[in-house]
C-alpha cells in the first residue's frame, strides 16, 4: 500500500510552488482584465521553460526534467493553486500524447516553450467542438478555446473521435478574442483552414488523461480557496472572537476540508489508473476524479467567497477569480453530471462493489 507521493515528488511540487508564487497571479489578472488584454503570463511561461517544467518524461535529456505522470499531477495541482495564467496542462498533455503516438514531432519546441498548446476536446458523449481532417490538414471552427489567442497549436478531436494536434502558426487560423468569464485563461474563437494536423490516436483516452490532470488543477484551486477562507476566519473578529471559532463557520470549513480530501482520494485513484499498465479502470477512474473535483472546486470557490462576507464580494478578493476558474474548468470538459452519466452502466464499477 503506497497511496501517496514520495518525499522527492513533494519537494518537486514545493519548488514549483515557490516559482509560481513569485509570479503572483491575482493582481496581474485583475489588471489585465481591466485593460481588456488576453490573460497570459509570458514571463512565467519563460521561467517555466528555462527551469524545464514543460517537457515530460522522455528519458534522460538536458531539455527535460523527469516529469512522469505523478509529477505532472503535482504540476497541475500547483498550477491550479496559483491560478497560473499559462497553458501548462495542455502543453504537457500534447507532449505526452505525441510521445505515446510514437511521434518525435514538436518535442524540442514543447520543451523550450516555443509551442504553446490549447485544449479543446468535446465532453464525453458530445461530438463538438470538432475539426474535419483530410490527410494531414484540419479545418473547422473551434469555439470557445481557452488560451486560444496565445496558443501555437490546439489539441482537439474530429467527429469520428480521433484526437489531433493542429498547428496554428501558419496563417491558416483566424482568431477572435472572446469576452471570458475566467480571468486567468482568455477564450478565443478559432477559424482553422487546412492547418497541419498530427494524429494523436483515440480522443477518449486523451480526454480521460486531461480530466484526471484537470482534477488535480481543480483540487489545487479548491485547496487555495480553503486556505484563504481558513486564514480569514482566524483573523476576522466578530462578537469578540475570530469568526472561525463559531461552529457555524468552523463546521462549514471542516466540511469543505472533507470534500477536498475525498476528491483528492479519487484524484489519486485517477493518477494510479494513468500509471497502471492495465487500462481497464482508466475511464472509471477519470469519471470519479472528474466528478469529485469539479463539484468540489465549485463548492470551495463559493464557500470561500461567502466566508469572506462583504470582503468576499469585492473585485479585490481572490475568491471570484476561483469562482470564475471553477466554472470555466467545468465547462471545458463537461460538468460532473456529464461524467457521472455512464457510471451506473460501468462493468468495472460493478465488479469493484
Amino acid at each position, binding site marked *: *500500500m*503506497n*497511496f*501517496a*507521493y514520495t518525499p522527492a515528488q513533494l519537494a518537486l511540487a514545493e519548488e514549483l510552488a515557490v516559482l509560481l508564487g513569485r509570479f503572483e497571479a491575482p*493582481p496581474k489578472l485583475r489588471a489585465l*482584465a481591466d*485593460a*481588456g488584454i488576453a490573460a497570459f503570463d509570458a514571463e512565467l511561461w519563460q521561467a517555466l521553460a528555462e527551469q524545464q517544467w514543460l517537457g515530460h518524461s522522455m528519458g534522460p535529456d538536458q531539455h527535460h526534467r523527469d516529469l512522469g505522470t*505523478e509529477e505532472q499531477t503535482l504540476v497541475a495541482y500547483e498550477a491550479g493553486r496559483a491560478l497560473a495564467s499559462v497553458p501548462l496542462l495542455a502543453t504537457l498533455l500534447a507532449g505526452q500524447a505525441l510521445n505515446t503516438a510514437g511521434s518525435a514531432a514538436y518535442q524540442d519546441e514543447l520543451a523550450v516553450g516555443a509551442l504553446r498548446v490549447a485544449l479543446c476536446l468535446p465532453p464525453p458523449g458530445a461530438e463538438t467542438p470538432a475539426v474535419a481532417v483530410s490527410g494531414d490538414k484540419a479545418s473547422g471552427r473551434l469555439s470557445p478555446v481557452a488560451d486560444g489567442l496565445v496558443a501555437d497549436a490546439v489539441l482537439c478531436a474530429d467527429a469520428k473521435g480521433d484526437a489531433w494536434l493542429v498547428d496554428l502558426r501558419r496563417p491558416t487560423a483566424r482568431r477572435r478574442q472572446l*469576452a471570458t*468569464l475566467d*480571468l486567468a485563461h482568455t477564450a478565443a474563437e478559432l477559424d482553422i483552414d487546412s492547418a497541419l494536423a498530427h494524429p494523436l490516436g483515440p480522443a477518449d483516452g486523451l480526454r480521460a488523461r486531461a480530466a484526471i490532470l484537470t482534477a488535480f488543477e481543480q483540487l489545487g484551486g479548491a485547496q487555495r480557496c*480553503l486556505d484563504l477562507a*481558513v486564514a*480569514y*476566519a*482566524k*483573523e*476576522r*473578529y466578530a462578537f*469578540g*472572537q*475570530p469568526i*472561525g*471559532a463559531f*461552529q457555524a463557520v*468552523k*463546521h462549514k*470549513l*471542516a*466540511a469543505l*476540508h*472533507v470534500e477536498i*480530501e*475525498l*476528491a483528492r*482520494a*479519487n484524484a*489519486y*485513484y485517477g493518477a*494510479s489508473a494513468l500509471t497502471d499498465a492495465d487500462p481497464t479502470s482508466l475511464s472509471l477512474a477519470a*469519471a*470519479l476524479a472528474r*466528478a*469529485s473535483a469539479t463539484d468540489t472546486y465549485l463548492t470551495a470557490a463559493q464557500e470561500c467567497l461567502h466566508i469572506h462576507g462583504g*470582503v468576499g464580494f*469585492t*473585485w*479585490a*478578493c481572490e475568491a471570484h477569480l476561483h469562482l470564475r476558474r471553477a466554472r470555466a474548468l467545468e465547462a471545458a470538459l463537461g460538468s460532473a*453530471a456529464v461524467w*457521472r*452519466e455512464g*457510471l*451506473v452502466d460501468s462493468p468495472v*464499477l*460493478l465488479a*469493484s*462493489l
Partner: protein
Amino acid sequence: MDFRDSPEEAAFRDQARAWLTANATPRDPAQVEPGVFEHWPSAEQMQAARAWQRRKFDAGWAGVFWPPEYGGRGGTIMQQIIWNQEERRVVTPPAVLLMGQGHVGYTLLSHGTPEQKQRWLPPTLRGEYAWCQLFSEPGAGSDFAALACAATREGDAWRIRGEKIWISDGAYADFGFLVTRTDPDGPKHKGLTCFVVDMRAPGVSVLDVRHPNGGSHFSHVRFEDLRVADADRVGAVNDGWRVALTTLMYERFFVGAWGSSGAFGGPQLRHLLELAAKCERNGRSALQDGAVRQRLAAFAVRAKALTHMSYRVLTTVSQGGIPGPEGSIVKMEFARMSQEMANFGLELMGPEAMLAGTDAPWDGVFQAALLENPCMRIAGGTDEIQRTIIGERLLGLPQEQPPPKGLPFRDMPRGGGWRSPLGDDAPRRSGAF
C-alpha cells in the same frame, strides 16, 4: 501511487488467506451485513465466537500485532489490518469479542503494567474474556471528559458510584474498561482515572437500552458501591484522559482503515442498482431515468472516494505511522452516505417502502437500515464533534469562547475585515465582467 500490497504484504495476505480458506467457508461479498441491533447473541453464538477465537489462537492468528509474550503474533499493525480484511471474506460467528482485541486490548498494551497485561491479555486472545468499554454517561457523550461516575479511594481499593450508557457488548461482557472521576476539584481533563472492572461483581447492574428498531445492542450499566482493587487501576491516578485517548485513537484508526475491505457502501450500492432495475419511473425502468441515474452515480463517486480515502489512511499505517483525525473522515462520511442510500432505496420502492421484515423487498434491509443508520452518525463522535475536531486540530481554527459580556468596548478583541488591498479598489475598470 499504488494501492496494491507490497510484496511482503502480499505474502502475509496469502498465508492468512490459506489458513482461513482451510478453516472457514467463504462469505458472499454481495450480501449486506445483518444489523447488529436486532438481538443479543445466543448462548450458542457466544460459544461459537469463543471457539473460533480459540482456534485462531492455537494456530497463531490471534492478536496479529500483539507481542508474543501476551500470546500475540508479534506482527505489524498493517498485518493486523490485512488479517481483518481477510477474515471478513469468510463466514465467522458474531464479532462479540472484538472490543477486547481491538480498542481495549490496545489500550492495555499501551498503558497496563506487565502484571496487568499478563493477567488480562492472554485469556482475552484465547477467547475467554469478552470486554466492554465504559465511557459514555447519560450526561457525558460528546463532551465525554465531563463524565461524573465517581471513584473514591478507600485504602488499597476504590469505591465506584455512577452510571454508564450506550455500552456495546455490555450484556455479555466479562470485564469492562471504565473511566471515572477521581478528582472533582481539579480541571475537567485532569481528574479522570481508568480501571478494569469485573462486570459480574456485586454492585454492577446491566440493563438493556431499546433502540428505535425495538432491539437492544447497548446497555445501561449502574455501579452502586462497586469495590475495585487499586491493582486494577490502569495508568496513574488522574491521568485517565490520556489513557482513554489511546482507546479513542484506535477506534478511529480501525474504522478509517476498515473500508479497504471494499465495504464502503459497495453491497448497499449493488442493492440500490438491483432495486432501481426493478422499480418504475415515468413508465420505464428507474435505472433508465436520468435523475435516478445521477443519484446512483453520485453514491458511486462517494463510495469509491471513501474506499480511496481509506487507502490513504492505510498508507500512513503501511509506512509505520498512526493516522490523525483524518481517519474520522471515513467514519463520518460513510455514516452520512449510508443514511442517504437507505432513504433513496425506500423512495425508489414506492408503496412497498411501508413494509418491513420479510414482507418487504430484500427482506427489509432498507427499512432496517433506516432505523439503524442514525446510530453511526452519533457513535464514536457525532458529525458535529468530528467537524469540530477537524476544524481545530487540522485547520487550526480557535476554540469557541463564551461571549465577553460587559467588557468595555475598547478591550473587546477585534480584527480583520475590509482593508484596501493592493490599491485595487481605486481605478475604474472597463471591459471585464
